[in-house]
């Protein structure tokens, strides 16, 4: 893991002191509300419905045990004993008091954490594949790249007042688990087809929100050592030409969309040609220093398949089912990357109590080289566990209430906090997720349905990524009532797609039935072992739309009966 050097340490400490002073000046009236607001946002402090909210950066989703324990301490001392993992791999606390935030930031700095650039019109926390460094399908660990971008973008003087927020994601794997095509910039580490050199495919202009768009490839191949200068050129084009007159059109996706990818590429290349690359690109020694922090841990030499694990699986069906859902193939024989579901049926997606944080931190320390990952799916990963330890981990997770066997299944639902917490929300998300999870909680049925991603947002800003859900749910207000639009066929992977709306919005209590009708169409239409999204692609939206709208016809029939 990356460790702060003296400059990082000093920078974060100074920032805490500055914010303490800014809070004091707000309270004595030296700073107006208008002056203070951007300052608090740049330190991750929002004002939500019931309280302030503090968003803590978890760079590229990587956490050490001591950091998660510190988050548990903050949850107990300054919040309500729990936190919430977000779709940007960050953690949010829902109840901090402004008076306590400087102290909380101090506690975070003690464990090399901060809230800088988790809000505001700047380059936000860089996200990465949560299986970085361990996935069998990976070419190269994306985290050194993500860390390099974090350092370059932190307080970058030219890019601290962008037209709008800017989100970057990096993957080094064949399969995209970081949703790079729906980011402002997505980077995919790849090998040059002719030379075999490692570099980046640069994708620009993806995004969700009120105008969902899939990113376009602006550079097929960018040599690795040219990254920062090229990013600088792309950011400069955006910074100069992005729409500052209309916040709804201010993201880079709108610029790329309006002028076209060829024109955008041309402008970036022109800017790039003018830049003094060597003065911007990172010193190779610094790149090496950063990369060294992400060197693989010292794995044991183990047989590819643990006999103990096989025996435990054979004698305990519940354990085997949990492992089937939760274990991801590790590139090192005998090891597994383990996803811990934060989607216990009946709980809020992504919420974790302080006791659970400590339990997970203990497991990471004991079994996973002290390392954890947060996923954009709002789950947690122990990236390096021995297969032979899985049974002990399962038992510990059961005690902690964290052994739900639903990773990647229909009840592993992404949901933003929605109107239960968020001041921007137009409807609730969490109760919808809870109701669907309850409806599909039967283990056998979930396994039978197989991989299916439901994603829920409580407003058009799409923090719950509903556009790229296999089934997406968007909560809106209609005539003073919460109303939910359903989309189908979205995909956040390398096959990125925006879902199609199935029809008019429906009431909250109609959502589980609607999802059930869509699942029934899939079960009737699927070919052997065909996942939900593939069936949707093969048969098209029409049969699903018919089933979705069927509730209206049944209502009409009822009405006709009533009249008759």
């Amino acid at each position, binding site marked *: 893991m990356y460790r702060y050097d003296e400059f990082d340490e000093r920078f974060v400490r100074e920032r805490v002191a500055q914010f303490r002073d800014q809070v004091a000046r707000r309270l004595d009236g030296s700073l107006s*509300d208008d002056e203070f607001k951007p300052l608090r946002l740049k330190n991750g402090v929002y004002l939500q419905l019931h309280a302030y909210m503090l968003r803590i950066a978890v760079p590229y989703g990587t956490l050490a045990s001591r950091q998660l324990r510190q988050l548990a301490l903050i949850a107990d001392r300054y919040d309500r004993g729990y936190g919430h993992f977000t779709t940007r791999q960050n953690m949010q606390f829902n109840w901090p008091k402004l008076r306590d935030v400087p102290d909380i930031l101090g506690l975070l700095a003690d464990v090399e954490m901060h809230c800088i650039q988790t809000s505001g019109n700047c380059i936000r926390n860089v996200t990465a594949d949560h299986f970085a460094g361990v996935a069998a399908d990976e070419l190269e660990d994306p985290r050194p790249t993500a860390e390099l971008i974090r350092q370059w973008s932190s307080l970058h003087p030219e890019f601290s007042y962008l037209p709008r927020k800017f989100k970057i994601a990096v993957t080094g794997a064949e399969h995209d688990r970081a949703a790079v095509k729906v980011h402002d910039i997505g980077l995919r580490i790849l090998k040059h087809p002719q030379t075999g050199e490692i570099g980046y495919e640069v994708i620009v202009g993806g995004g969700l929100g009120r105008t969902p768009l899939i990113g376009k490839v602006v550079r097929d191949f960018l040599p690795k050592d040219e990254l920062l200068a090229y990013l600088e050129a792309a950011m400069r084009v955006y910074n100069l030409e992005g729409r500052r007159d209309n916040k709804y059109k201010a993201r880079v996706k709108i610029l790329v969309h309006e002028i076209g990818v060829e024109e955008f590429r041309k402008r970036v290349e022109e800017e790039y040609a003018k830049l003094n690359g060597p003065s911007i690109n990172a010193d190779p020694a610094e790149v090496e220093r950063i990369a060294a922090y992400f060197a693989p841990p010292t794995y044991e030499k183990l047989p590819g398949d643990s006999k103990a694990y096989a025996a435990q699986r054979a004698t305990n069906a519940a354990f085997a089912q949990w492992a089937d859902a939760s274990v991801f193939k590790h590139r090192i024989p005998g090891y597994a990357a383990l996803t811990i579901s934060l989607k216990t049926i009946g709980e809020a997606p992504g919420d974790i109590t302080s006791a659970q944080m400590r339990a997970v931190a203990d497991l990471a320390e004991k079994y996973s080289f002290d390392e954890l990952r947060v996923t954009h799916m709002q789950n947690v990963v122990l990236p390096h566990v021995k297969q032979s330890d899985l049974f002990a981990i399962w038992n510990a997770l059961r005690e902690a209430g964290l052994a739900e066997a639903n990773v990647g299944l229909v009840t592993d639902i992404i949901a933003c906090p929605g109107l239960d917490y968020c001041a921007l929300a137009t409807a*609730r998300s969490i109760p919808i997720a809870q109701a669907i999870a309850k409806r599909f909680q039967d283990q056998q049925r979930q396994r039978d349905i197989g991989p299916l991603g439901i994603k829920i947002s409580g407003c058009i800003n799409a923090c719950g990524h509903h556009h790229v859900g296999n089934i997406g749910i968007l909560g809106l207000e209609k005539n003073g009532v919460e109303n939910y639009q359903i989309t189908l066929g979205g995909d956040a992977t390398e096959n990125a797609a925006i879902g199609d709306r199935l029809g008019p919005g429906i009431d909250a209590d109609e959502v589980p039935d609607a999802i059930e009708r869509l699942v029934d169409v899939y079960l009737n239409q699927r070919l052997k072992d065909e996942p939900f999204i593939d069936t949707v692609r093969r048969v098209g939206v029409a049969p699903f739309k018919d089933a979705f709208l069927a509730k209206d016809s049944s209502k009409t029939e009822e009405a006709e009966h009533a009249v008759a």
Partner: protein
Amino acid sequence: MSTPKRVPLPAILLANDLLDGDVVFSTGDGWTRDPSEAVIAYDDPTADKLEAHAKAAFAAQQVVDAYLVDVAIDAQGRPTPRHFRERFKTLGPSNRPDLGKQAVYRAL
């Protein structure tokens, strides 16, 4: 001068406490955390008074994000916001009845 457009009456005035961030209700000359103690404005002069109170409290660094919310009055004479957003703001997260005002003020 035309009267500025405001929510239909009756209304209460709510805000967030600057230091703590939690929701507070105007009592006309002070602030309460108990929604049943909120002053209910049935007429424009009372609503004006609540808004003047909020303006002064904002200027004095006591509250932020203050605004009038139209309410229904229950049989006990207590105000309930008509819009679901403001109802949640008054109560707390609907998935966590153990948190927010709903946990403290059991009658809600």
